[in-house]
């Protein structure tokens, strides 16, 4: 079992994409889309997410690793364009980018760039498609791949928690669970718990939803030459 789990770590860059992929699936943090509604159940949450449109958000990531005394902090910008484009551009501690589009994942940093075709990796394809599924509010597909727990925190200002547990044994060997917390249409944090005890916390701010970009903007955003980090 250990072998299988660690072997799959070879494709973990894709998982990393997945982890960032959930970020924009929440709602506008600072009200660019006006009044927030409080989802009372999973269906209503997914319905809200399905209307997110183009998303831009600032993220802060803390990676808590068992081999480190202190967490690693990363921040940058994240972009989503429906139905299947995602870009994650980090500025700190070093510049790096991941772009997902047309079934391919490209990432680059100061050491170079690499591209993956998702068609040959069931795990990567599943995880990345999950992202697209959430963006589209495709509850049926989400249920096919995860056990889902939705907890409306009615007494806490309309907050909610969404917990996903991968159905796939192989995926579960890497990611134990993913926990989203939000308020109304706001996704405030995502916590990824890995099977080896490491965890990653993403916090979001300055979120804008309902964005639409023209062709040249899309090309610029979803490339390894990231746009200005300031939203």
């Amino acid at each position, binding site marked *: 079992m250990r072998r299988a789990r660690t072997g799959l770590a070879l494709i973990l860059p894709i998982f990393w994409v997945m982890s960032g992929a959930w970020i924009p699936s929440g709602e506008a943090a600072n009200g660019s889309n006006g009044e927030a509604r409080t989802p009372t159940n999973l269906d209503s949450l997914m319905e809200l997410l399905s209307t997110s449109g183009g998303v831009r958000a600032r993220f802060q990531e803390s990676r808590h690793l068992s*081999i480190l005394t202190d967490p690693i902090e*990363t921040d940058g910008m994240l972009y989503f364009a429906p139905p299947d484009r995602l870009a994650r551009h980090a500025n700190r*501690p*070093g510049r790096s980018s991941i772009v997902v589009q047309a*079934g391919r994942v490209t990432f680059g940093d100061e050491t170079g760039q690499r591209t993956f075709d998702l068609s040959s990796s069931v795990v990567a394809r599943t995880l990345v498609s999950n992202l697209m599924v959430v963006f589209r509010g495709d509850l049926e597909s989400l249920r096919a791949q995860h056990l889902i727990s939705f907890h409306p925190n009615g007494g806490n200002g309309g907050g909610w928690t969404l917990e996903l547990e991968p159905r796939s044994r192989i995926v579960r060997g890497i990611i134990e669970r993913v926990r989203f917390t939000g308020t109304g249409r706001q996704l405030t944090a995502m916590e990824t718990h890995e099977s080896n005890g490491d965890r990653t916390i993403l916090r979001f701010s300055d979120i804008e939803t309902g964005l639409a970009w023209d062709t040249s903007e899309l090309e610029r955003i979803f490339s390894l030459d990231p746009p200005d980090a300031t939203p």
Partner: protein
Amino acid sequence: MNEARVRWITVVLLTTVGLYGASRLEFTSSIKHFIPSEADAELVELSLELVDSPLVRRMVISVGGGPKRGEVAVALAESLRAHPEVAWVESGFDDQALRGVYELYFDRRMYLISEDPTVEIRAMLEPEALAGRAADLRRKLAEPGSMLVSRTAPEDPLGLFERIVERIRAAQSALSGGAGSFESASGEHAIVLLGLRSSPFDSGPQAKLLGYIDSEFARLDSAAGGGLELEMSGVNRIAVASEQSIRGDANFISAVSISVVSALFLLVFRSLRHLAIAILTPLAGFAVAMAVALSGEDPVHGITLGFGFVLIGVAIDYPIHLMNHHAFAPAGTRPRDTVVRIRSSLLLSGLTTTLAFIALALSDFPGLREMGTFAAIGIPVSLMVTLVSIPAFMGPSTSPSPTQNVLASASIGLVRWLDAHRVVAAAIFGVYGMISLAGIPQLRWEDDPSTLIAADPALLAESERVRQRIVDFDSGRFVVGLAPEVEAALVLNEQIHRRLEQATAAGHLEGIISLQSFLWSQTLQRENLRTLQSVSDLGDRIDRAYGASGFRRDAFRNFDATVAKPQAAPLRPEDFAGSPLERALDSLIELDGRWAVVTYLRGAESGEAIRNALAGLDDAYYVDQKEIVADIYQGYRRSTVRMVVFGSVIVFVVLQLRYRNPRHGLLAFVCAALAALATYGIFGLLDVPVNVVSAISLLVVLGMGVDYGIFSVDAARSPERLGATLSSVLVSCLTSVFVFGALAFSEQPALRAIGLTTGIGILFALALVPAVFVLARRT
């Protein structure tokens, strides 16, 4: 035995033998067929083995033209996996493959650190180096690939597995991939690699496989919306196309031959019945020779089949002579009486031609041997059919046709004129001599065997395009290390790898693809581990260096324990069985009890540079198949020419024994000898390149030329046969020239060479016949 029974027996036997041959008909277009089988040079043996090795049993499939190329390529690969002709398919590193790589190497990472462990491992463990590695690890943990690194770092703080993965990735840099399908270097094409179960020259299964690939791709492309482009590279494609070309040529040549010969028979004998009877002779020779050739396990070469058609031109001469002489015989003569009259001439001509081809059958070339044997069986069979069976199909003589009379009269007139102008007769010999003397020194020999078989330029261009999409090795050029055991071979391969890396650094090579990227000798692996274990404070050093970069102390203690007691034995060749890297072991080949490790080269500057790089390394060889095979061909071309000379001497001796008159023997022989020499003289003057097939074809010229000489001398000894003999020679010559003329239009260079050499040679021989007769009659 009555004639009706002879006819029936002939027809039944011919049908039976023909059906047997047809039922077993299988032929090949392998270039290996033209490589000597008993060469004792080590490199030649090696080269021969590698001609049909996994190096050649491989195809590269490229799918381009749209975003769905990757999906279609993977689906095509999946479909091909189930095909009986496909031994293996690789289309990318999927989850299972990646897991396989991990399982193969991770627990063995401390065996595969450095090729120079005592220097490099110690340098890696210096405080400054460890501090640098710790900072690097910290940086990587913040990068997109951090989940990979964080998973492996506790057990591999030095990044040893990462080094192995990078080494493998560099060896496969042709195919950018990672977690997806294989891609071309440009990223514009999806790539599928597949291995063949059968030889790529085995055209039957290869044609089926290629057809299956085309149909499957068409189906998948259509399902994906269309617009994708399939291109392929593989020796099997060239081989199948060559076979189709040979088939096409065979059909063309036989159609032309049959049409022209039919027309000629109608013109001369005023009857197609004569043609139907005469054609029995070469058909019988062809069928029996074919049946014998196909009775073994190996398929017949396509070139041999083409050469077999040459027999039609040679063997049909015998019934032509018989029928023509029979036509000039007194009315009512029985065919068997005509046979008795010319039997000695026919037997002698058949014997000399057979002897000439027996010389060819002694060749070390499997291909030449096959041709020689084919003819050496076919000719006597044809002669026997002429003497025994054909008379049973003929009726009593009546009278010559008007054409036969015209030909005989014209021939007699020409001879009489020459007899009156002997200077002209002598001048003909002089002209032949001058052509020979002037042209032969200018002959241009072409010894590249690949020029014998034509390949479709469009196919070659496509193959090259596909090869360029991956960073493939140079075809036919590699370095081989030979050793009695696997371990010794791997040790030698390490030395070869080091030398070639140096050559690459010096710019003599663009790169190499070596087994060294995947597997090291047990000796080197254990040395790596020993060196790592010899660092007594390994754990403390790592803790100190990594602690300064924010890593927890004792985070890497598992690594320390694993080094002290590895969880796996060193990597062995057998460990690759069933792994995703199993194909890497294709370059480790068992050859007659020894082990060869092949290193593929990319962009080798020159053979000399590689040989210099390997200088002093025993049992390490630079192999350039083209160069080696060209050397072989040069040797065998010379050998073939010697055989032609040897065959000529035998024929000359037989003629002397037969005629017991030196002048007659010489005249019967000179017709063939001068025709052969003048043919090569013309080639030299016209700058037509000649090759080993041209040399073999001289035997045909020699055999048929001697026939003409024999008939001419015999006619001179029996002047009443002059008209019949000369017209027979003319008709048989025209028949042969038309048959060989068709060969000269073949797309296959080998068949073209046969056609040109024999066609021109026989015409030259014919032109000498009247002069030979005149000079023979004077004695």
